[in-house]
Structures are given as structure tokens and as C-alpha cells.
């Protein structure tokens, strides 16, 4: 990973040119003539759009946040957008460590490590398989792979819930039902269509000549994949990680069914807290719990940006 970061830096410095605003990011002590005033109308327009869009996107989060720090009496008033009159962090504490999810009243923190134990291997495995599939489909095209892929893509359109019953039977028949490996396999299966598609299309956009050069160099299937294609895949891997971590982290249905009671992810708890049918609802706790649960994917989103490397294949081919 360290290597990738380094690449990011040099890329940014070397390719500053086409973006006017970047003129001032190389630090040179001597006073430099400015390329342009920073605040051109176009620039203002860019920020204007982004700010408006950001406000739209943030509106629900704002409501969630203020709801999560209000006592229930205030929430019942129905003043959605008002700031809390009695600010309280009690709901957050409760959500994290004392909300009841059935008999247990330990909040959502209980399943945290279970979630981690499911997410990490599932993400890695599903991305690895998706990347290999995409790579094979784009560059090697083994016979029949196209057909398999077509069916795989069709499978993406079947509601997960419909597939659960038969999959339970299959996994039960190989003694993997209700186990950690079982849930990892399940996530890999359900992630496969989209992961494969993602990587297949990404690789389709890379210059074919690179693959040819590697073939001439004697690279076999795995060599080319590991040493050439994977390092060039950072942007798409980021997208894949975002999708898989979010999807798997937020899943509770599959976790509930396949993970077995020792491995229930924290979202099962979250669901138990917020999704009660006939019990009373503590909206503030619900919101706090929801935000708390999403902290891991959010953190990931925030730090993932540096791997959206610019011009990853630049300098490779001429023409």
C-alpha cells in the first residue's frame, strides 16, 4: 500500500498542468506569478454546485443528528428541523452500550467484532474472486466463461431472499450452515456478479498492449494478474471495497440466517433496535445507533480517496 501512496504523490505533482487550480500546490519559496485569480466565475460555479449538492445530501443527516440528541418528548413534538432544546447524548450512550435487543441490553457494540470478522475476509475474498474473474474475462476469455458470466449477471437480478432457502440447503449439506466460513462464502457468492462486472469493465478500458507485452515477457495468468494488473487496479479496488464493505457491513439478513448465533453481526442488533414492529420506538436511539453503525464505512470512504489515483496507466503506450 505504501507504494501506491507514493505513486499518488508523484502523479499529483507531475500532472498538475491541466487543472488550473492546481497551479499553487507545489511549494516554491520565491514569489510566483499567479496563473489566474483563484476565484473565477467558473470556480465559484464549481463550489456553488458542490455546496448546494452537499446541502441536499446532508439534510437527512442533519435531521438524524438533531433527532439523535433530543429527548423523546421533544421528538414527539414533531419539530423535525429544530435544534434540540435539551441537548442529550444519552441516546448515543444507550445505542452503543445499553439499548435492548431482546433479552440482552448491551447496545450495538456487542456485534462489532463479529462484523469485523465477517467483513474483512468476505470483502477480501469477494474482491479477489471478482478481480480474477474480471481479469480472466477481459484478457484471457477462456471458453465458456462468457456464458457463465451471462448467467452470473442474470443471477444478480434475483432477489436475495428468494435464493436463501436453496442456499441454506446447499450449505447445510456441506456442514457450513451457521458458521463463519459459511457466511463468508455466502457474501462472496452474492458479491460475485457485481464484482466481476466491475473488474471486467475496468480491465476492458486498459490498453491491451500492456497485456500483450507481459505475455511476451513470459508472464503467465497469475503473474500478469498479480504484478501488472492488480497494481493498476487501485481505483477500481477502492470502488469495490466501498461497495463490498458497505454491503457486507450493513447486511443483517444473510448474517442472521447463515452466520450462526455466535457470529451475528452488529447490524442484527441494529435491526433489533430500530426495526421493532409493535414495541415502542426510541427514535433518538435508533438514529444514534444507525449513525454509529455506519461509522466504519464512513471512515473508509473518507480515507479511500487517496487511492483514486490519477492517470494510473499514463506513460504506458504511445498513441
Amino acid at each position: 500500500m505504501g507504494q501506491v501512496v507514493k505513486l499518488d504523490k508523484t502523479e499529483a505533482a507531475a500532472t498538475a498542468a491541466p487543472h488550473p487550480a492546481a497551479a499553487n500546490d507545489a511549494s516554491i519559496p520565491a514569489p510566483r506569478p499567479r496563473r489566474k485569480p483563484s476565484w473565477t466565475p467558473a470556480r465559484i460555479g464549481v463550489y456553488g454546485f458542490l455546496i448546494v449538492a452537499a446541502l441536499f445530501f446532508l439534510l437527512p443527516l442533519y435531521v438524524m443528528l438533531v433527532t439523535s440528541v433530543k429527548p423523546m418528548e421533544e421528538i414527539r413534538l414533531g419539530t423535525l428541523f429544530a435544534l434540540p432544546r435539551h441537548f442529550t447524548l444519552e441516546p448515543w450512550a444507550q445505542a452503543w452500550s445499553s439499548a435492548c435487543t431482546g433479552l440482552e441490553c448491551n447496545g450495538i457494540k456487542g456485534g462489532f467484532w463479529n462484523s469485523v470478522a465477517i467483513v474483512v475476509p468476505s470483502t477480501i475474498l469477494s474482491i479477489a474472486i471478482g478481480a480474477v474473474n474480471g481479469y480472466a474475462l477481459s484478457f484471457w476469455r477462456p471458453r465458456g466463461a462468457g456464458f457463465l458470466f451471462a448467467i452470473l449477471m442474470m443471477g444478480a437480478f434475483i432477489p436475495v431472499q428468494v435464493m436463501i432457502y436453496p442456499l441454506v440447503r446447499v450449505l447445510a449439506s456441506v456442514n457450513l450452515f451457521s458458521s463463519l466460513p459459511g457466511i463468508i462464502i455466502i457474501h462472496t457468492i452474492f458479491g460475485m456478479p457485481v464484482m466481476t462486472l466491475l473488474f471486467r469493465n475496468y480491465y476492458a478500458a486498459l490498453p491491451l498492449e500492456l497485456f500483450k507485452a507481459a505475455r511476451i515477457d513470459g508472464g503467465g495468468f497469475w503473474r500478469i494478474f498479480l504484478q501488472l494488473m492488480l497494481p493498476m487496479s487501485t481505483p477500481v479496488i477502492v470502488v469495490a471495497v466501498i461497495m463490498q464493505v458497505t454491503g457486507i457491513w450493513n447486511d443483517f439478513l444473510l448474517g442472521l440466517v447463515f452466520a450462526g448465533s455466535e457470529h451475528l453481526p452488529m447490524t442484527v442488533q441494529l435491526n433489533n433496535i430500530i426495526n421493532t414492529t409493535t414495541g415502542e420506538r426510541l427514535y433518538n436511539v435508533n438514529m444514534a445507533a444507525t449513525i454509529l453503525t455506519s461509522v466504519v464505512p464512513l471512515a473508509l470512504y473518507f480515507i479511500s480517496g487517496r487511492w483514486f489515483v490519477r492517470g494510473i496507466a499514463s506513460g504506458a503506450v504511445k498513441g
Partner: protein
Amino acid sequence: MVKKRQNVSIAAYIAILPMALTVLLAYLGTMLWTARVSVSSSRTFPASDFVGASQYVRLFNNERWLLSLQNVAVYGVLFIALCLIIGFLLAVFIDQKVMAEGALRTVFLYPYAMSFVATGLIWQWILNPELGIQEVLHKLGWAGAKFDWIVDQDMAIYTIVIATVWQASGLVMALMLSGLRGVDEEIWKAARIDGIPRWRVYGSIVLPMLGPSVSTAFVLLFVMVVKVFDAVVAMTQGGPGTASEVPAKFIMDYLFGRANIGLASAASIVLLLTVLAIVAPLYFVRNRRAAMGA
């Protein structure tokens, strides 16, 4: 006589073995199983009898199912179009070397991280004429303001569009951004020399180059459309009435609450065939073009 193709490494076949197994055992298997169940009288559990097409007959006599298909068509067109447009725009604007890029990216992506059970409720509140935006406008003195789509038979489906676009367009943005960043800088330079305004470069050069990313995003969104469920349940429960019913909710209702997996399976099969009917021609056209051009 002549082999048509050069040897493909054995490793390639080994590498796609997991995919082959998954496809055969999980996907093809499930599809066949579902097809089988759909011609039985299964209720809570799969039955092994054969009742012909009666589940299908019942399905197509079911007004709610037909309405669901209709709704999802409207929803799908809008949702996909808006997500692609907004996602692309966000990616483009974020790509302008803006300050706080990481924060903005997170802002646009965060809805994707949050359970719709909670955020759907928030949307329900925000859109509710007694609580949300309309009420705020009234309080601000604009008494005539009206924004009650969520309780309006004709408009409810559009509120689902708003909320789900809010949720998914960040992902499209990320996808597009990864594609954008892959465009060779030299192309940008050439366009600057040619005096092409940035927006035209995005429109005429970069966007076509993003073809694969767009098609990934399209398929992804299409899958989301077919499976849209959480948002509907959290926001409108399919209502008012049946105004925002969608096929996935129909299937889920029959699968669990109404314990009729025969009908649910029939619906799944119909849904799958519909998707196939839409996607296959696209796929065919693309392949043809690939064969002729690139």
C-alpha cells in the same frame, strides 16, 4: 482444421473455477429451483406437486403485481437516469481539484452507508406534509406551499426516486471518479490545445471514454431497481394504497408474510424474464458493435 484461437492458459480455467461453481450451484441451481417451485402449490415450504401455470395465472390476475411492474418501470427509468446524471456531475465537479475533496466525497457517499430502515424514516418525515418541508415553508410564511408527494397517490413513487437517488448517486460518483482518473492526461492537454471548453471535453471525449464505467454503473443501478425494497418499506410501505408497490416488495410479502413461495417464485421468474428481455438486446447490440469496431 485450424484452431480458431490461441491456447488459453490452463490457469485461466482454474481461475474461473470458483465462478463456474458459483454459477452452477448457486445461481443456475437457484434459478431452476425457483422455476420448479413456481409451478407447484408451495406455501411456506416447497411442495413437490405440479400445478401447471396456475401460479402465473394468479399472478397476472393480481392487480397489485401488475401495478408493481408499472411502478418499477417508471421508477427505474427515472432512478437510473438521475443517478447517472447526478453521479457523473458530482464526479466531474469533484474532479476539479477542489478543496476538501475527501470530505465532499464522503458527504456524497454517506447515504450509501446508512441503513435505509432509519434514513427511510427520515425521508418519510422530511417529505411528510405535516412535519417536513411543506410545514417549514408554511411556518416561514409561504402558506400556499405544497409538497405532499409522499401522501399523493400519483406522486408517491417519485419520493422513492428522490430518496434512492440520494442514496445511490454517491456510489455512481465513486465509480465514475475511478474511471475519470484513468483518463490519460495527454488527452486533456490535447483538448486544451484544441480550445475545447471543459464541459465539452467531459461530454464529448471523457464520457465516451468512460463507456465501461457507465455500463457498470448502469447494470448496478438496474439491479438496484429490480431489487428496490427497503426504501419502499421504510418510506411508504407501498402506499398510499398500492401507489408505490414494487415487484420486490410483492415477492417478499408472499415469500414471508403471506407464506406463498409458489407465487413468489413465479413472480421472481417473471421478473427475471422481463429483465432478460430488456438486457439481452442491449447486450447483443454491444457485442455486435464490439465485433465490428474495436
